[in-house]
Each structure stands twice: as structure tokens, then as C-alpha cells.
């Protein structure tokens, strides 16, 4: 009897530990809204001007820049990442495959500040002296951010392609197709929702990324809607990091930065949710 009571208590304790994530997420939502709700109004969401000392907090230029940076980086990451995933899943065997796979996994973990620093000292001067502008630009942001997004796209879309049953490949090869014909006609169509999920997830990662992108995009004092890829811009994350250190606690400026955080959180959560639903639907369909 005593033993059963002890077992029951242990189970409850473990359940409590498992609930920690719920508590933390709830607290995050409560505190972000408690600080940010006062700034979330029409002028904030649709204003064109962000000028803290003039009490103007409009986020449109920042949001537009965030999406330009995110989509561009995603584009580059797709162009390199999907072929790389096809290579890993369809064209390579074990020693090479596992070497590439583990370096890609390593790339996920490299501290983003180190990547940003690399961008600042290598990429920025390269652009400044060879292409023009100040170097700190949308283009630099695209490149650095695509390096950060690449591993996510590669690993999830590769998983999706490898999940296609081998009998499909065998059948197709037996009919005389080349590997590329098989990939094009069978593997990609069957893995397309997984590939799509990886792209959506990559977008969420790109938009939420902070330090690497901050160091190479210039962050002008007054954000504007960029006219060329050599323009300096400001994104949601970099605005928060740069301005939170001098925003007076309890001022409209601080509330607005938390409201930026809410917008960022909302956008990233929606993207994550979409990709998770796609993956779940895919698993359900398969089994």
C-alpha cells in the first residue's frame, strides 16, 4: 500500500516537471502582453514612422524589411538546400552522406554571434569594395541568414525524401529510369509536403534570428522601406536588441519594443504552427 502511494506521488511529481513548459509559455504570453499591450494600437501597426524621441512608433518599414530579409534569405537557402537534400537522400552513400550530414548539423549549432562577426569582417567589406554601398546591407543579411537557414531546410526535406518507400525507387529504376527521372517523377512529388514544411519552418527561423543578421544589416536610426538590396535596413529583432538598452523602463518606447516582440512572436508562432500541421498531416496520411 505504501509502495503504491509512493509510486503515485512520483508520477504526480514527474507530471509537474512535464508541465513546466506550459507554465513558462503562459508566463511569456502574460508578461509580453502586460508590457506591450499599451503600445499595440492602430498607429503602431500601420504607422510609417519609427522615431522614439518624437514618440512616433510605426512598424510598417520594420515589418516590410523583416519580410524582405527573411524571404530573400529563404530563397537562397532553398536554391542550395533542396538540391543538397536531394543529393543526400538519393545520390550519396554512407561515408560521404554521413560526413555532409554531420557538418550540416554542426552548422545549425554554430553560435549565431560568430556567424554575424564573420559576416561583419568578411562579407561587409567584400560588398563595400566590390559591389558598392556601405557594405552593411540587405544583401549581406540575405547571405548570412541563408547560411543559418540552410541546415534546417536540408535536414527536414532530406527526412521527407528518405521517408518515401524504397519500393518506389526500385520500381522506377526497374522500368529503366535514371535516378534523376525517379527523383523528379516520384520522390519530389511524394515528399513535397515535407519539403514545404521545411521551407515554412525555415522562414520562421529566419525571421526570429537576431544576432547574426543584426551585425550585417546596418540598422539605420530611422527605419525606412528599402529601395535597393544595398540599402541598410532594420528588422524586428535588431530593433529590440539595439533600443531596449536605452529605452526608459515604463516609457512608451519600452512598451513599443515589447509590442514589437509580440508581433515577432505571433508571426513566428503562426509559421511554426503551419509547418507542424503539414508534418502531422503527412504522418497521418502515411500510416
Amino acid at each position: 500500500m505504501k509502495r503504491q502511494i509512493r509510486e503515485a506521488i512520483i508520477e504526480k511529481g514527474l507530471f509537474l516537471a512535464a508541465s513546466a513548459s506550459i507554465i513558462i509559455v503562459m508566463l511569456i504570453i502574460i508578461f509580453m502582453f502586460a508590457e506591450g499591450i499599451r503600445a499595440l494600437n492602430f498607429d503602431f501597426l500601420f504607422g510609417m514612422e519609427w522615431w522614439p524621441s518624437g514618440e512616433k512608433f510605426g512598424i510598417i518599414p520594420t515589418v516590410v524589411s523583416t519580410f524582405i530579409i527573411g524571404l530573400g534569405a529563404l530563397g537562397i537557402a532553398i536554391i542550395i538546400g533542396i538540391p543538397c537534400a536531394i543529393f543526400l537522400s538519393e545520390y550519396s552513400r554512407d561515408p560521404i552522406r554521413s560526413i555532409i550530414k554531420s557538418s550540416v548539423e554542426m552548422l545549425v549549432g554554430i553560435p549565431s554571434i560568430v556567424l554575424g562577426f564573420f559576416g561583419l569582417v568578411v562579407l561587409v567589406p567584400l560588398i563595400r569594395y566590390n559591389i558598392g554601398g556601405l557594405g552593411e546591407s540587405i544583401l549581406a543579411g540575405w547571405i548570412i541568414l541563408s547560411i543559418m537557414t540552410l541546415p534546417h531546410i536540408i535536414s527536414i526535406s532530406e527526412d521527407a525524401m528518405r521517408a518515401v518507400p524504397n519500393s518506389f525507387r526500385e520500381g522506377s529504376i526497374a522500368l529503366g529510369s535514371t535516378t534523376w527521372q525517379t527523383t523528379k517523377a516520384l520522390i519530389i512529388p511524394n515528399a513535397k509536403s515535407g519539403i514545404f514544411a521545411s521551407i515554412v519552418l525555415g522562414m520562421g527561423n529566419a525571421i526570429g534570428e537576431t544576432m547574426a543578421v543584426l551585425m550585417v544589416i546596418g540598422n539605420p536610426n530611422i527605419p525606412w522601406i528599402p529601395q535597393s538590396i544595398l540599402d541598410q535596413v532594420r528588422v524586428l529583432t535588431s530593433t529590440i536588441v539595439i533600443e531596449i538598452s536605452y529605452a526608459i523602463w515604463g516609457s512608451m518606447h519600452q512598451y513599443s519594443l515589447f509590442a514589437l516582440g509580440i508581433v515577432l512572436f505571433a508571426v513566428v508562432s503562426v509559421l511554426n504552427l503551419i509547418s507542424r500541421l503539414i508534418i502531422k498531416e503527412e504522418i497521418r496520411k502515411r500510416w
Partner: protein
Amino acid sequence: MVNEQVKEKYVKIFLYFTASFSILVLIAIMFFIAIKGMGMLTVEFLTTAPYRFEYGGIYPQIIGTLYLTGVCMVFAGPIGILAGIYLSEYAPVNIITKILRFFVESLAGVPSIVIGLFGLAFLVYYMHFQISLFSGGLALGFMILPWTVRASEEAIRAVPFSYREASLALGASKWQTIKEVVAKAAAPGIVTGLLLGLGKAIGETAVVLLTAGSGLESFLPRSIFEPVASLPVYLYMIATQGHTSEAYNRAYGAALVLLGIFLVINVFASLLRNYYIKKHRVRFG
């Protein structure tokens, strides 16, 4: 037919190119940082404190980073393991378990800067922990908790079912079985997961910048409620605000040390993972 063979060849070359590109990027970054930072790696640089941007070393930054990840692990390690045990051994298939998993995934998706803002509002101002080692470590812990939960769950799930059956057949209770048999068999896998979480926490900048300190502190904290320096924040400050070559040299040195710690943790984790896979003939992660 010949046409298809030719096409196959070109496709193959293109695919090779994209795959090698992703490795080359990794190698290029590491080599560049290693070559530029190597000259800074003197005993003096590693054992003295910084003074402004251009002078001194990074001793408090290195130790501060270790302190921060230590506090982070004291929080995220035990809770993550216990939650992993619950999810793999106890959780019934019902709506509550689904909700639990949903929130673990949600927490994993929160951008780190949002965790930083939350840490600032909740830990620093609301709980009055100040900008400190404690706030920074705890905020980092919030960030990596989902990774420790998932890694523990996977490692525990990978333990063959026969282990459990044998223990239960000997009359052990469920908890005794988990504690004495399952947890021991899963230990290397759990440690691997924790190490990978640690690698993530060590390089994190945004969270630490907002909750732990300005990065240039030249003293170690005397208590857990004092600000603490850290390598990533030091690197950020010095790379964006120090505009002299002396400052840049220090940034290269700090980047190399950070990358080095990160690599050591990762190599150790993957050795442990290989050992684990060999021992149990299972795959995980």
C-alpha cells in the same frame, strides 16, 4: 535515352556542387576565425580581465559563460530529464499529453529575443532578480528546456522494452525499474542531449545581453545576483563598438575561444552518441 544519361550527369554535378558548398561554408568560417584568432591565444589573454575595448584579456568572460551555462543546466537538466521520463514512461495517450507536447514544441519555437524580453520583464523587474547571473542562467534554461525534454524522452524511449520487462518480472516497481534500469541504460543518451543543449546555450547572445550583463565586466560576480560577463556578449560589444584593430583582434580571439568550447562540447557529444548506439544497437536523435 542518351539524352537522359547526359542530363543525369549534369544533375549529378550540380547536386555535388550544392552539397559541397554547405561543407565549404562551414570550413571557411572555422578556418578564418581560427587563423585570425590564433595569434591572440596567449596565457595573458586567457587569464586577465578586459579593460575598455582595447586592453586586457577575457578571463571573466570565459568563466562567466561557464557560470551562466551552469545555472542554466541546473534548471533545465533535472526538469528536462524528469519531464522526459514522464513523457516516455507515464504519459497516457490523451488530450492532456497532447497539450503537454504542444507546449514543449511551442516553447522550442519562441524566438530567443522574445525569451530575452520575457526574462527582462519577469526575472529582472518583476521578480527583482536584477540583471544578474541568476536571471541570465534561468532565462537560458527556459530557452533550452524543450531540447533537454526531447533529448531525454528520445534516449529513454530507445531503451529496449525487454529491460523493463525483466526488471518488472523480478518484482521491482515501475519507479524502481525506471530509476535502476531504464535511466542507467539511457544515461549516455541523456547526457548527449544535455550536452547539445549546452552547446546551444553557450553561444546564445540575445538572451544573455538582456538579462545577465553588458559583457565587458572585468570582475567575476561575487554572488549569483550580480551581473556577469560572457563571451558572446563581449564579442558582440567589441565587434560593434570597438573600432580599432586592437579591439578587433580581441574579438577574433573571443570568437575562437567560443567556437572552441562549442566544438569540444559537440565532439564529445557525438563520441558519446556513437558509443551509445554501439552499446545498445539502437538509433536515436
